[in-house]
């Protein structure tokens, strides 16, 4: 009987969940009709430009702005000191969950001294951006250059300059994990592999730069901010708090967002200054970062040096990992998410796929005179995975064990969950064994090894790299932000409404940056309700229109926001069926909704939703007076005791190294990953592919290189190399679906899994190619120069 079966809409033959559905927004984009922040023009709008510090570390003796103020078209010139007077106070980027962490107070623009080259110092607002930039040239600042702290290895030296005297030294944070008996494990090992690693500094390079357009209505006190943000509610609180406007009077609208990757989950001083200017002037003010200032003002990430070792038995059994992480942050810890997550995550996830019981890891995070670092796609995972997987491979080679077999012998068994990793994280619903076997099959692993051996005889050096991974997704409120005290909501919500025509509006707190969030929310809502997907419109990215939520970060939109949509839609369905039961004089549990029509147990079409909508909105007299339809349902979802929903998978990379030039050619890349329930296979695949390429960029090309004075030498797209089409391989993506047990939808995050493990697979592949030369590379990006140096050719 239908009424006895558990409600499982995703098992239905007409389920949209599990099917590829095209994104409606793509139709606008291919016609040139996207709408990004910089496309919005408001009456009387002005434009902001910033004068930024030319020095990495320098005291401001004086600032003379009168000449700039007199320039044609200039409406406002504001120094850091001017802005400080109208701000409620400085940011301090610490969280209670990181005991002992310290950070200096930070104002939106430099006040007495600048602490990185690129820090905003003076805001200029004029009729056009060009006029604002003209005026900036007339600002006269008397600088006194100070010694800069640029190298993380010497930042804590006794004679190192101290960036913030109030902190005493340049130390931001230390954390350690020690299971105990690590030395004994190493002493009992048959093989120990030890290595040092360097990871270069990266930045997100979203193609659309950071953009903000602020408008303040002095009559009502309403502040409206159109901005390219992943987290409208978080940034609402940040602006409200900093500028003394009540949260509920601040509307954040995120229109089309042109790439984000974590760099648009943060708060930036130049954006606060722009909003402050709009409030002061009572006119709309727009700021769009240009590419050059993006490089020195967007969030940075990944700068870490690591010394690590692995202890292994002759059987291949991994006994222990031991690592020491030195993480180079920027001049301040980023408010409110901090600059210590990368190091923290490296400690959490290194060696995460494996069953070893002994683990010791220490992290030291130091301040440098560079732009603040913080969360960027796959936070810490590219580094932890590269270190752990390199050690596993090298240990396997020493033992004569194939890298696949080495992993087979050490991963957690698929039936071993729940489990706890040696680093102390709880693991559930993972599938390392199945993913490995699928990878072996997809790669044609044995044949590939034969091809490699054959080509090696002809002097062609190819390498195969394997990297298993875990990925923390969908953080919960008991985790860092929640218990740490950050104003970031770790729940997310959906408000779903039935309209008079039978259409449905679904408003969600999670946001869309092109990954297809809105589309998958529509798939979940339509499937749960039993209506055509065209009957659903999803709204996101407007704090006036959506329920409060954290937005999109940490691969949380599908798993957290999607479950909220599912639960809200289930509630709406139940109400519709209750009303239909009344109208049809039938038992609601004997009814269902199929293709937008209420059907009875025999499947007979009884009542279209348009009729339910019409009656419930316009013809309420047809209902008994005891029945008051609501037809608007809200559900919130959050993790309970879990810190994350972990996803897992394994990458395979196939590369060719030219031993004469040091060039690495990527031939093919494979990913098998488990993001739980696959909602839209195409969109999931494309998240993985895009993520892989972002990871490969970091592994082979991208590098923010600073000179000894703290000047960025690679601050343009000419010098900071991003992956382009010609160098990238085709990427084969396959999925294993182990549903998450923490929700009914069963989804886990997928957006960062490519980025998190691709660098590990590529580095392992390069080193596999270099094995005949007994050479290794352990610094990323892996450049032709570093390959030739490893080969002893230069």
């Amino acid at each position: 009987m239908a009424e006895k079966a558990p409600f499982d809409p995703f098992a239905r033959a007409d389920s949209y969940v599990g099917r590829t559905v095209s994104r409606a927004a793509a139709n606008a984009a291919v016609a040139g009709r996207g709408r990004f922040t910089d496309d919005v023009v408001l009456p009387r709008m002005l434009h902001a430009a910033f004068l930024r510090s030319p020095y990495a570390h320098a005291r401001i003796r004086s600032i003379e702005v009168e000449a700039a103020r007199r320039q044609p078209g200039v409406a406002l010139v504001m120094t850091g000191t001017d802005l400080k007077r109208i701000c409620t106070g400085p940011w301090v980027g610490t969280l209670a969950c990181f005991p002992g962490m310290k950070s200096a107070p930070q104002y939106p623009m430099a006040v007495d001294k600048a602490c990185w080259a690129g820090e905003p110092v003076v805001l200029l607002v004029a009729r056009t951006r060009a006029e604002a930039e003209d005026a900036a040239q007339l600002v006269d600042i008397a600088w006194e250059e100070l010694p800069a702290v640029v190298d993380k290895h010497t930042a804590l030296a006794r004679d190192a300059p101290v960036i913030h005297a109030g902190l005493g030294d340049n130390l931001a944070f230390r954390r350690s994990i020690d299971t105990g008996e690590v030395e004994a494990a190493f002493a009992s090992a048959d093989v120990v592999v030890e290595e040092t690693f360097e990871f270069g500094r990266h930045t997100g390079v979203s193609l659309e730069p950071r953009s903000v357009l602020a408008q303040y209505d002095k009559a009502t006190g309403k502040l409206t901010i159109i901005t390219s943000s992943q987290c409208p509610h978080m940034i609402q609180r940040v602006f409200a708090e900093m500028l003394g406007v009540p949260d509920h009077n601040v509307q954040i609208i995120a229109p089309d967002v042109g790439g984000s990757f974590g760099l648009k989950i943060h708060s930036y001083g130049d954006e606060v200054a722009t909003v402050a200017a709009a409030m002061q002037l009572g006119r709309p003010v727009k700021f769009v970062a240009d590419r050059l200032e993006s490089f020195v003002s967007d969030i940075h990430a990944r700068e870490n040096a690591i010394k690590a070792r692995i202890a292994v038995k002759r059987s291949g059994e991994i006994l222990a990992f031991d690592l020491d992480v030195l993480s180079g942050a920027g001049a301040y810890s980023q408010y409110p998410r901090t600059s210590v997550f990368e190091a923290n995550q490296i400690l959490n996830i290194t060696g995460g796929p494996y069953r070893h019981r002994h683990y010791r890891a220490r992290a030291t995070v130091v301040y440098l005179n560079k732009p603040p670092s913080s969360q960027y796609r796959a936070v810490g995972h590219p580094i932890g995975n590269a270190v752990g997987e390199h050690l596993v491979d090298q240990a396997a080679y020493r033992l004569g064990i194939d890298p696949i077999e080495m992993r087979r012998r050490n991963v957690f068994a698929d039936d071993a969950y729940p489990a706890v990793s040696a680093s102390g994280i709880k693991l559930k619903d993972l599938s390392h064994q199945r993913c490995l076997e699928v990878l072996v099959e997809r790669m044609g692993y044995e044949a590939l090894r034969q091809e490699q051996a054959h080509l090696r005889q002809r002097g062609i050096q190819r390498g195969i790299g394997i990297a298993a991974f875990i990925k923390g997704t969908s953080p919960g409120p008991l985790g860092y932000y929640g218990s740490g005290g950050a104003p970031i909501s770790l729940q997310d919500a959906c408000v779903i409404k039935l309209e008079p025509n039978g259409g449905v509006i679904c408003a969600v707190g999670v946001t869309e940056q092109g990954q297809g969030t809105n589309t998958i929310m529509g798939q979940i809502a339509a499937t749960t309700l039993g209506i055509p997907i065209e009957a659903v419109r999803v709204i996101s990215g407007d704090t006036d229109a959506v329920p409060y939520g954290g937005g999109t970060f940490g691969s949380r939109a599908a798993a957290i926001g999607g479950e909220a949509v599912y639960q809200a839609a289930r509630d709406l369905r139940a109400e519709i069926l209750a009303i239909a039961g009344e109208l049809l004089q039938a038992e609601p549990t004997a009814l269902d909704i199929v293709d937008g029509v209420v059907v009875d147990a025999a499947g007979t079409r009884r009542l279209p939703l348009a009729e339910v909508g019409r009656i419930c909105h316009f013809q309420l007299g047809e209902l008994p007076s005891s029945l008051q339809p609501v037809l608007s349902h809200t559900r919130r979802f959050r993790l309970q005791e879990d810190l994350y929903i972990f996803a897992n998978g394994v990458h395979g990379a196939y590369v060719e190294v030219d031993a004469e030039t040091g060039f690495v050619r990527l031939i093919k890349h494979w990913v098998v990953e488990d993001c739980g329930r696959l909602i839209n296979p195409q969109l999931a695949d494309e998240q993985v592919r895009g993520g892989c390429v972002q990871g490969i960029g970091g592994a082979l090309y991208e590098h923010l290189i600073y000179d000894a004075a703290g000047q960025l030498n690679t601050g343009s797209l000419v010098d900071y190399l991003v992956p382009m089409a010609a160098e990238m391989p085709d990427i084969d993506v396959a999925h294993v679906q182990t549903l998450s047990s923490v929700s009914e939808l069963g989804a886990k995050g997928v957006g960062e899994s490519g980025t998190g493990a691709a660098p590990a697979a590529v580095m392992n592949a390069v080193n596999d190619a270099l094995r005949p030369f007994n050479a290794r590379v352990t610094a990323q990006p892996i450049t032709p120069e570093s390959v030739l140096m490893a080969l002893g050719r230069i």
Partner: protein
Amino acid sequence: MSEQTQPISLTVNGERFSRSVPVRQHLVDFLRTELGLTGTHLGCEHGVCGACSVRVDGALVRGCLLLAVQADGADVVTIEGLDATGEIADLQQAFVQRNALQCGFCTAGMLLAAAELLRAPARQTRAEIRRHLSGNFCRCTGYQSIIDAVAATLERRSEGGGGRG
């Protein structure tokens, strides 16, 4: 200093415009701010990313590297114009079906660049398509879906005798 301007007349997407423009204004700022053609995007303003690609007198041009005054007398086509004529309707459809875009910021430039290949439709290897598009930066897709969409369109056109979908 006062802004120095110069009059220009040009055709954009088949329509004639005469405007007085700042001599330092580049073509894309002119298209976006003066004509409201916001489909063309600025990604780097130093000629690397390709987001600002437009067609000027039939040639693919980086709109950030050309001043508006240099386009005096020119015939300019932007993504809005390409969309209106239907010249790449099949390619646009392939982009949507193959999800060859995510945020959509690079898409106009990518389509303009791919349209060059389609004007002489011949079978191209994936490597050739990759090389042709390697002046256009996409941070979202990893490129494979874009290559797939262009390859599929090229294939359909060469099968269909260069038809326009």
